[in-house]
C-alpha cells in the first residue's frame, strides 16, 4: 500500500455548523506533515473523516488510494491517535492493546514491542484509570503503532506531555517519517511543530490556508523586512523614505523597513552619517507566520489576540 493520505474537496457540516469546507491536501510518505489551525478549525473532523468514523457530506478521503472503510485490517494500514481519553478506566493498558491486536489479528508479541517503544513497560499492567494524561497519550500512540502501519495520524499528541515527553515524541515522529511512513500531526500551536514538521497544512474555519513546506512559509512571512535600531530614528526614517522604502516605527529606537535590501539601507544611512546599533534582515518565527496566516481565520477572534499578533 502506498503511504499517502489524499483529502479531496472535503465538506462536512454538523447541523448548521460547517466544520470542513472544501478541504483538499495530500500527505506524502517520508515526511512529517503538520496539520495546523486554531481550535475549531476542523482538524479533528478531517481526521475522523479520514478514519471513516464520520461520513463526509461531499468529497473523499483516501488512505493509500482506498477509502478507510474498505480496509480489512485497518490497523496495519493506518495508525491513529484521536483522543487519549478514549480508554476504559477499568482496563489494564496491556488489555486495551490486546483487544485492539485481536480485532485485526495482530500477533500479541507486538504488544510488548509497542509498550516498550512508548516507555510504558513498567505501567502496562496498571489500570488506565490511574494514568496521567501524558501516559494516556503514550498508550494511544502505542495503539497507533500496533499494526506497524505505513500511515500514521496523531491528533494533538503533545497535549499533556512533560518536556521530556515532548522531546521524545518529536524524535519518534521524525524517526517514523525517516522509515518512509506518512505522518500527519495536528496541533493548534505552530511552535510545537517548528522543529518537527517538514510540510505544513494550515487550515482555518474548515478551509485550506496554506499547503507548503516549513521553509517556504517562514520565508513568505518574513518578507523583505529589515529591522533597524538607531538613536536617530526620525532622521533615518526620512532618509529611507526618500530613498523609496516603506518605513514604520515599532518603538522609540526601532524601525521596520520594507522595500530596500539591507545593504542599500546601510549605504543610505552611511551617506547621511547616521549611526545605528542594529541592522538585521527580519526572520519571522513559524509562529509569527502562522499568526499572520490565521489572523482572519480564528474562530473566536479577540482583540487581545489581534494586538499580540501585530506587536510582533
Amino acid at each position: 500500500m502506498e503511504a499517502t493520505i489524499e483529502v479531496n474537496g472535503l465538506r462536512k457540516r454538523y447541523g448548521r455548523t460547517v466544520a470542513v469546507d472544501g478541504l483538499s491536501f495530500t500527505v506524502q510518505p517520508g515526511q512529517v506533515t503538520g496539520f495546523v489551525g486554531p481550535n475549531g478549525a476542523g482538524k479533528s473532523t478531517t481526521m475522523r473523516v479520514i478514519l471513516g468514523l464520520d461520513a463526509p457530506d461531499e468529497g473523499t478521503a483516501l488512505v493509500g488510494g482506498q477509502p478507510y472503510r474498505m480496509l480489512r485490517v485497518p490497523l496495519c494500514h493506518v495508525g491513529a491517535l484521536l483522543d487519549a481519553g478514549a480508554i476504559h478506566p477499568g482496563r489494564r493498558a496491556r488489555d486495551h492493546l490486546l483487544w485492539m491486536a485481536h480485532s485485526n489479528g495482530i500477533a500479541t508479541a507486538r504488544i510488548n514491542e509497542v509498550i516498550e517503544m512508548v516507555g510504558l513497560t513498567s505501567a502496562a499492567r496498571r489500570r488506565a484509570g490511574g494514568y496521567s494524561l501524558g501516559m494516556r497519550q503514550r498508550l494511544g500512540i502505542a495503539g497507533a503503532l500496533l499494526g506497524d502501519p505505513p500511515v500514521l495520524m496523531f491528533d494533538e499528541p503533545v497535549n499533556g506531555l512533560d518536556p521530556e515527553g515532548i522531546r521524545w515524541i518529536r524524535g519518534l515522529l521524525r524517526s517514523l517519517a525517516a522509515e518512509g511512513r506518512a505522518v500527519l500531526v495536528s496541533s493548534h500551536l505552530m511552535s510545537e511543530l517548528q522543529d518537527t514538521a517538514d510540510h505544513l497544512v494550515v487550515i482555518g474555519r474548515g478551509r485550506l490556508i496554506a499547503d507548503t513546506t516549513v521553509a517556504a512559509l517562514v520565508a513568505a512571512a518574513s518578507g523583505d523586512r529589515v529591522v533597524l535600531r538607531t538613536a536617530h530614528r526620525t532622521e533615518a526614517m526620512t532618509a529611507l523614505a526618500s530613498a523609496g522604502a516603506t518605513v514604520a516605527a515599532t518603538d522609540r529606537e526601532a524601525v521596520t523597513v520594507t522595500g530596500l535590501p539591507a545593504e542599500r539601507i546601510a549605504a543610505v544611512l552611511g551617506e547621511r552619517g547616521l549611526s545605528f546599533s542594529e541592522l538585521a534582515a527580519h526572520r519571522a518565527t513559524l509562529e509569527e507566520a502562522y499568526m499572520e496566516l490565521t489572523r482572519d481565520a480564528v474562530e473566536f477572534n479577540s482583540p487581545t489576540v489581534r494586538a499580540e499578533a501585530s506587536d510582533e
Partner: protein
Amino acid sequence: MSDRFGHLVRAEWTKFRSVRRWVLGLLIAIGLTVVLSTLFASVGGTDANSAPAVADRFHFVHQPMTGDGSVVARVSGQEPSHDWAKAGVMIKQSTASGSPYAAILVTPRNGVRFQADFRTDIGGSGRTAPLWLKLTRSGTTITGYESADGTTWTEVGSVSLSLPQTVEAGMFVASPEIVEIQRQFGGTSIGGRPTLGRATFDNASVSGGEPAKWQHEDIGASMFTSDETGATESGGTFTVSGSGEIIRLQQGDDDLIFNSFTGVVFGLMAVIVVAVLFITSEFKRGMIRTTFAASPRRGRVLVAKALVIGLVTFVAGLAATAGAFLLSQPQFRANGYRPPAYPYVHLFDGVVMRAVVGGALFLALLAVLSLGIGAILRRSAGAIALLIAIFIVPQILFGGLPLNVALWVGRVTPVAGLAIMQTTKRWDTAIDPWPGLGVLAGYAALAMGVAIWQVRRRDA
C-alpha cells in the same frame, strides 16, 4: 462466519473480561439469583397433602342393583347451569361420598362422557340432551352407551371396576362451581360460586335384582339447601336438581420448578446493567471510535458484541438457575411440598432442564436486548432505567392490574420470556414457555436490528 469475525469475537471477549466490574456484575447476578431464590423458597408452605383428594358431590336418584344388569334413562332436558354440568346414569358402590363409581353423562358444552372412579374420562359424541344413556355391568366390567332413539346404542367406553355384589344405580345431576378470581392490590382471591344444575329424565329403569323403589339424596355436602336440590317424579318423568362436582382434585397447583427461580427477577437487573455498560461505556468515552477505526464494519462489531455478552451471560445464567433450583428444592420439601401432591423433581428431569437451561437462555437474550437498547440510546442511565422499568414495573403492577390486562402484558412485552421457566399451566399463565422466550428473542432481534442500522448511518 469468516476468520475475521472470529477476530472480532475475540476482541470483544478481551474487552469484556478485562473490566473487572463487568465480571463482578455477572457474579452478583448469580449470587442475587441463587440467594434470593433460596430465601423465597424458605418462606411459605403447603397443606396440599392433607387436603381431600377427590370431590364427590351430586344429587343421586337410585335403587339397589345386584349382580349383572343395566341402568337406562333418557335425559329429556338439561339446563345449561355450567359448561361442565352433568346429567346421566351411574353405578356406584354406595351412597358414601368418594366411593367407586362409573357413569355415563351428558354436559351442556362438552358432549357425552364416560367417567369412572375419578380417573377414567372418555369422550363420546358431542350430542346434548335429549338423548338416551345406558350402563351395563357384566362381572367387573362396566360399559357406557349412548343412543339417540333408545334402540341403536353406541359404546362410549368401558372400565374394569371391582364392586360389591349389590351396588346403587340410577340417575344423577351435578353442576360445578364457577371459579371467580378477584384481584386487588396486594393479593388475589380465588372463590367459587356454586351453581344448581337441573335435568329431566324419563324411561328410567334398572334391571338386575329385585325391582325397588327410587330413593334420592345429596351425595357429599351440598352448597344448596335440601329445598333447592332434590328430585320429583310425575308420570315417569323425573326432575332432578343437584350441585357439585365428581372429580379428582388437583393437589396443589404451585409450580415448584418455576418458584425455584424467583431470584432471577433480581439477578436480571445486574445482567441489564452489565450488558448496557458493555456498549454505552464505549460511547461515553469515545472509545467507540477506536473500536470502529479498528473494525470499520460496524454491524459485525455489534453482532460480535452481542454474541460475547450473550454467551457469557448464558454461562453465568446456567450457574444461577441451576444453583437456585438445587438450593430451593430442599427448602420446599422442608415446607411440606412432598409427594404425592408434589412429587420430587431432579435437576436432570426434562422439564427441570428446560427451565434451568431456558432460564439461562432468557438471561442471555435479555443481555442481547440490553446491548441493543444501549447501542440505540447511547446513554447508560437511560437504557438501564428503561430496561429495568420494562422488567420490574410489570412485576410490581401485576397484582393490581385486571387479570386480562396483566396476562396481555405477560404475553406481548419482553417479560413473556420468563415463561420459559414455567412448568405448569394455571389460570394466571400468560403464555407457553417457548413462545414466551420467542417473544423476548423477537424484541432482542428488533433492538439489534435497529442498533445496527443506526450505528451504520450515524457518525461515530
